[in-house]
């Protein structure tokens, strides 16, 4: 069967471009055609500057013709989550607060992608300011799961995941504070990696919770994920948490027999859907059949992860979002006579309900009389969770769990119950609290809906996680699967 261009993985595109069988212009024209046919239905992109995309593609083709190609990503489109700054493009975080904003500068990862010749392709929908697990908190539009358009794609990087699984773009950037790359990746049947805290610079990423936020690659195959990761991870003095050494490495071959995989005690029990549990168990059984050692591990403080996260993340968000005051950029209320009125009215008009809820919660846990009981205790719990994970990862190479307890739910089903939505992130949150790399890999279906499993490794063990995932990918048919739309 002849493959359509939109079905190609980034790695296949790269090979075709290198052989001269394909031009970047022909590729982006095919993708834009698909964008016009499907984006209204899926709602993944909030903005696509077609003239700019064509100019970038032509520049890439000209470089190739002149023998000056910039590497394997040259000419390949990468969709960008709308909280990562691209000079001259909207930077709205899917919020009314930033609706008028056009970024005056490039994020570090965008500079890196430009240097690699990648095509910066559109702005992807998200939960407002990355707060949410369904992309229903976007103030711009709804995004739907390409596997079932009545369901959510996950979030907050829901636009990125939906664009990949709808074949609208071969690669995308997401950001992950508590699962915002991995949870939508699982729901949309693609790959999503949250790197080690510090591997990728956040310069130019709109801050949500700075001690947790990471940018990461999203793709339809492991090779593609590696291709994008290698372009993103480089030192940057403008983010003081970014590592000052270069950690780019080629993917090593991993001998299955040497892998020790930890499965937390009782992880497939309470709250996990039967088919999610079965798909995860099948992944565990696969690794066992390959000669891996499966070891049960104890992470006694796992129950504290969600409350700890929602204290730390909202506290940091209430502080980070204090900058939206209507003074320097973004929305300014037309109804204000005094500076305080300007700030209060601008914020009240600009922020949506979930953002207000989290700012209020973060304000409470930091307020006089409550900070010790909530914020300081959450920091202590975070230390304990991290210590338990690091201790477990001395005995095993990685931890394996489901990515999300249940498959994608129906649009509107949980929007009125914030606590239920917060529990979507129960397996993904510990990696953010501990600063560890984590990956979601497609491993089957629950009915017609994709299910992913989740690998968490020691700091800077991205390559080991990706190699283990590649073993699984090579033996199964889940890579680069697209639903019929």
């Amino acid at each position: 069967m002849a493959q359509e261009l939109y079905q190609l993985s980034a790695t296949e595109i790269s090979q075709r471009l290198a052989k001269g069988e394909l031009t970047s212009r022909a590729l982006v024209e095919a993708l834009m055609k698909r964008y016009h046919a499907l984006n209204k239905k899926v709602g993944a992109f909030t903005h696509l500057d077609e003239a700019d995309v064509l100019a970038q593609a032509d520049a890439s083709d000209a470089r190739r013709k002149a023998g000056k190609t910039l590497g394997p990503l040259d000419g390949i489109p990468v969709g960008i989550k709308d909280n990562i700054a691209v000079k001259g493009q909207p930077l709205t975080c899917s919020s009314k607060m930033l609706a008028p904003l056009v970024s005056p500068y490039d994020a570090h990862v965008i500079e890196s992608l430009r240097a690699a010749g990648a095509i910066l392709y559109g702005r992807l929908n998200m939960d407002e300011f990355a707060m949410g697990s369904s992309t229903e908190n976007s103030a711009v539009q709804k995004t739907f799961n390409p596997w079932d358009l009545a369901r959510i794609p996950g979030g907050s990087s829901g636009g990125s995941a939906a664009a990949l699984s709808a074949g609208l773009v071969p690669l995308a950037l997401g950001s992950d504070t508590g699962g915002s790359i991995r949870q939508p990746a699982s729901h949309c049947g693609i790959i999503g990696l949250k790197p080690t805290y510090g591997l990728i610079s956040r310069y130019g990423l709109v801050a949500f919770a700075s001690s947790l936020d990471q940018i990461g690659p999203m793709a339809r195959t492991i090779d593609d994920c590696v291709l994008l990761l290698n372009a993103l991870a480089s030192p940057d003095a403008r983010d003081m948490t970014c590592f000052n050494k270069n950690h780019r490495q080629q993917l090593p071959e991993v001998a299955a027999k040497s892998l020790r995989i930890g499965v937390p005690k009782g992880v497939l029990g309470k709250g996990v859907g039967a088919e999610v549990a079965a798909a995860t168990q099948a992944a565990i059984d696969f690794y066992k059949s390959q000669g891996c050692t499966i070891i049960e591990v104890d992470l006694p403080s796992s129950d504290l992860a969600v409350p700890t996260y929602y204290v730390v993340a909202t506290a940091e968000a209430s502080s980070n979002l204090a900058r939206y005051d209507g003074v320097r950029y973004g929305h300014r209320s037309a109804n204000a006579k005094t500076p305080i009125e300007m700030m209060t009215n601008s914020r009240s008009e600009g922020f949506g309900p979930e953002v207000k809820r989290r700012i209020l919660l973060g304000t409470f846990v930091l307020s006089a009389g409550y900070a010790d009981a909530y914020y300081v205790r959450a920091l202590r719990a975070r230390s304990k969770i991290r210590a338990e994970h690091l201790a477990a990862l001395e005995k095993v190479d990685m931890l394996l769990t489901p990515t999300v307890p249940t498959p994608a739910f129906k649009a509107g089903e949980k929007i009125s119950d914030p606590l239920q939505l917060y529990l979507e992130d129960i397996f993904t949150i510990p990696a953010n609290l501990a600063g560890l790399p984590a990956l979601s890999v497609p491993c089957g279906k629950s009915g017609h809906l994709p299910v992913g499993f989740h690998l968490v490794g020691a700091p800077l063990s991205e390559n080991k996680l990706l190699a283990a995932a590649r073993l699984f990918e090579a033996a199964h048919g889940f890579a680069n699967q697209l639903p019929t739309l």
Partner: protein
Amino acid sequence: MSQGLDIDHLAKLARLNLTADEKKLYTQQLSQVLTYFEALAKADLPPTADVAMVVDESALRSDEPGKPLGAEAVTKIAPASHDGQISVPRVVDDES
């Protein structure tokens, strides 16, 4: 623990105007979330928090002046500006 939730006080600290309906809804939802947070109050925790990065390899950059965006780029994205400066409502009253 959640009895201390004074929504008017929080809204003032957070610089948000809330309608009566919003106040009711957020009070109810936040109380529910705070009840869920009670696991933290009961947990046996280490006496202090270790807030260092998991890999401590970051470093402060050298303290050299960089190139700022410049007044034109900054005022271009500002909601209101005048003569290359961002304008805001009057901060100081005439009488004071």
